[in-house]
């Protein structure tokens, strides 16, 4: 009996009320509370917290392999190779052709 009493006298779970003024403020999944946190044991209970291990685990999601399509394109930083490649590709083959062509053309004539 005394054991039951101590259980009944357990600490009250702290709660806080959150008033929503817009449906858009509702969380997108059922596991989280409006204005609350996914982990019900978070001290303060007002923030969504993630530990390092969980965040690192998400790093390998297929969604993270490519940048967001509408991320700002900044040559030399977010698009390091793109602005330079077309130039070097354009020049190099031209330089190679002038060297190779004299040798190639007679061979084709021989075949015909």
């Amino acid at each position, binding site marked *: 009996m005394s054991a039951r009493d101590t259980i009944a006298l357990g600490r009250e779970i702290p709660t806080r009320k959150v008033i929503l003024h817009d449906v858009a403020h509702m969380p*997108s999944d059922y596991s989280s509370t409006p204005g609350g946190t996914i982990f019900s044991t978070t001290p303060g209970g007002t923030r*969504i917290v993630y530990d390092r291990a969980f965040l690192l685990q998400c790093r390998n999601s297929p969604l*993270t392999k490519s940048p*967001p*399509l509408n*991320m*700002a394109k900044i040559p030399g930083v*977010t698009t390091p190779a793109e602005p330079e490649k077309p130039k070097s590709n354009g020049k190099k083959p031209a330089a190679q052709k002038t060297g190779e062509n004299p040798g190639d053309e007679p061979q084709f004539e021989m075949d015909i």
Partner: protein
Amino acid sequence: MAASNVDSVKAFSGEKNDSPKLAKKALHELYSIEESGVPLNTPWTFWLDKTIRGTTAAEYEASLRKLYTVNTVEGFWSVYNNIPNPGIISTRYSYHLMRHQIRPIWEDEDNSAGGNWRLKCHKFDTVDVWKELLLAAIGEQFSNCMGDGDEVTGISVSLRDRDDILQIWNSRADLAEQSTIINKVKSLLPNVTFTAVFYKAFVQHDAFEGKKPHQHR
């Protein structure tokens, strides 16, 4: 021939319309990443700037580029994984990850009452420090280290000729003394030697161009 001409015109105009199509696709992808991803406590925005000594706030603002605002853990990684890490980008550049869409500008309303901790570290530690600070920020691991009413509003990394500079922005300079964030940072990065650590309120910087509140002299 006429028909093929029409076709080619159509194809051509189709090509021309690629950008709205791409935008839609991008929006859709964005939507799906935001739908299926793990939500962050608040959105965070990646910024990039190139610092030139002695620039005015206006010149600095002009060099500031917004990269992307992320709302989910996956969104965060999709940017982080696809931008060069601070070990690669040239000196004088800075990355910032700011809460919501706060701009990394002292004088902005969101920042003017705040300040930042500056930590200098050796170049070989910069990439690690930047990553750990970002994870702690978006995971809200710093929230227990801050004074009541104060919060971390951004993390910056600035590449310099010698030691690089990491910055942790907070919203209330008057509450900075209550924060234990430096201990937290050191516990996250026990093997890193910080060559300098100090806090400064933005209004106390000589270069601060905003209105200086009266209580701060």
